[in-house]
């Protein structure tokens, strides 16, 4: 059985970019290449919600075709895995909706089917979500204000790996920090199936004031080219549908 691969960028940040390319444009570029961009805005109790930086969070996810969520630091772990899974479902549904449109026309989507048929379609969506391979490139903002949130970020990422490894499909993760020590964006973990033992990675960080979110997304896009390539879930119209076991 042929399987599809879902590609995602997961951006974890607490504020506004101030260096390099416009992250919203870079997210659009990612989407154009079949990569979904999800963004999680982390707050602690001292941050006031609704700031300028958090508007950017939504903008990036929107143009990246993904999901954004703003959370308190302590809810991070559950949110990270939920957003990732929801985004997978959304992508798969997007592909199926596309198929439905081609067949039925008139902007028909899964939701427009009668309830009896919808259950069956959702079963297929579930099945594909469970068995598809998933590549997630994680971008963590390590600018000064993120410093005391990083231990929780680390835990949330380990937890994400735990959640996803329960799936039947295969996972690949890689991890970038921005700003990096010398470069604006630093790759700290190359593509790997499991995200454990990442404790040390966060210890060596020196925090700068700059936040090069745009360049980070650009690096992430490039990184997908370096995985031994399997076919993307998006590629080939009718093949994507064949990917799902029926």
């Amino acid at each position: 059985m042929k399987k599809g691969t879902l590609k995602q960028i997961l951006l974890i940040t607490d504020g506004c970019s101030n260096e390099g390319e416009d992250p919203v444009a870079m997210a659009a570029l990612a989407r154009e290449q079949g990569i979904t961009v999800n963004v999680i805005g982390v707050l602690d109790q001292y941050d006031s919600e609704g700031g300028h930086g958090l508007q950017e969070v939504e903008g990036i996810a929107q143009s990246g075709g993904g999901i954004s969520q703003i959370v308190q630091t302590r809810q991070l772990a559950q949110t990270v895995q939920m957003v990732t899974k929801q985004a997978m479902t959304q992508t798969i549904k997007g592909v199926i909706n596309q198929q439905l449109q081609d067949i039925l026309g008139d902007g028909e989507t899964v939701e427009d089917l009668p309830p009896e048929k919808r259950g069956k379609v959702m079963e297929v969506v579930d099945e594909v979500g469970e068995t598809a391979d998933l590549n997630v490139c994680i971008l963590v903002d390590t600018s000064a204000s993120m410093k005391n949130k990083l231990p929780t970020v680390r835990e949330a990422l380990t937890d994400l790996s735990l959640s996803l490894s329960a799936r039947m499909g295969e996972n690949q993760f890689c991890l970038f920090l921005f700003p990096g020590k010398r470069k604006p964006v630093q790759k700290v973990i190359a593509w790997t199936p499991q995200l454990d033992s990442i404790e040390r990675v966060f210890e060596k960080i020196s925090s700068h004031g700059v936040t090069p979110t745009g360049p980070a997304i650009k690096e992430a896009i490039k990184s997908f080219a370096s995985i031994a390539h399997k076919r993307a879930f998006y590629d080939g119209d009718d093949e994507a549908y064949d990917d799902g076991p029926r």
Partner: protein
Amino acid sequence: MTDPDNLCYAPGTMIVGKWHRNRYQLIRLLGSGAQGTVYLGHSGDAHPVAIKLAKDRSSLISEAHILEQFGRLQGDPLGPSLYDSDDWVTGGSTVGFCVMEYLEGTSLSEVLKKKAFDWSLVYVLQLLKQLAQLHKTGYIFGDLKPENLMLIRPGYSIRCLDFGGATKIGRSVREYTEFYDRGYWGLGSRRAEPSYDLFACAMILIYAAAGRRITRSSEPQNQLKHFIDSQGKLVPYRHFLLSALSSDYTSAEQMRKELVRAMMAVESHERHNSHAAAARYPRPRTKRKSNGWTPAWLAASMIITAYIVFVVIYVM
């Protein structure tokens, strides 16, 4: 009162299904959670129903699909029966909803706060029996927690609500709550297997003894062990709990038998101990008082024992 963004609608609101054209009137709010809001309603005939309005239609679709499949099974009902599933078009937006059997009773999260620990053990015993049946169908419950369990008034039996987390065995668990999740405690995977639910059962007992969700420390495994050792109520069940927490039980049936055995062993012990304690530490001042209380206490524990024996022999 009416706030469509939060799925808040005033009592009296009529809900009309887009597909099946059935009409329902909302009576009052029953509760709400992460996935949606549940109202008591009626459908024209005298029968009250529970109507769940969903925030996210896809999770409701899966939940309704599962309830529908369970509805076709023989034997004791596992959850509420599903009557209808439809869309309601209101003010330009479409709200997915499902209509199910109204289960009249009290949420187990309320009950555990009020009742003695012995009752918690009885509830878990009942729950294990339900889980054994559920697991046979090839699903686990997933998001098992007192909030998702209901104590039905006649007969004090436990029923599961909210099948949004129900997952086919072998897949990754759909929905979970950190405190009841073995992954959160570093004690196993999030793959759906019967032992995933059994872990949550043990955590329900820990919750009942603590009266709250204890927060995880940096060494979660030891923390749970120490907590059990620090709670007099839990000590007699130490072995049982630790086995469930380390996923040693592979079936609900096996775990249920172990719990029955542990409960039977404890009852006689405790009475014995309390006699010994009373004899060893006579407190002259309160003697009269304690003399008055001992028989009452004894009677109470005998009644509980009798009830447990009754449940075990006749109901289970």
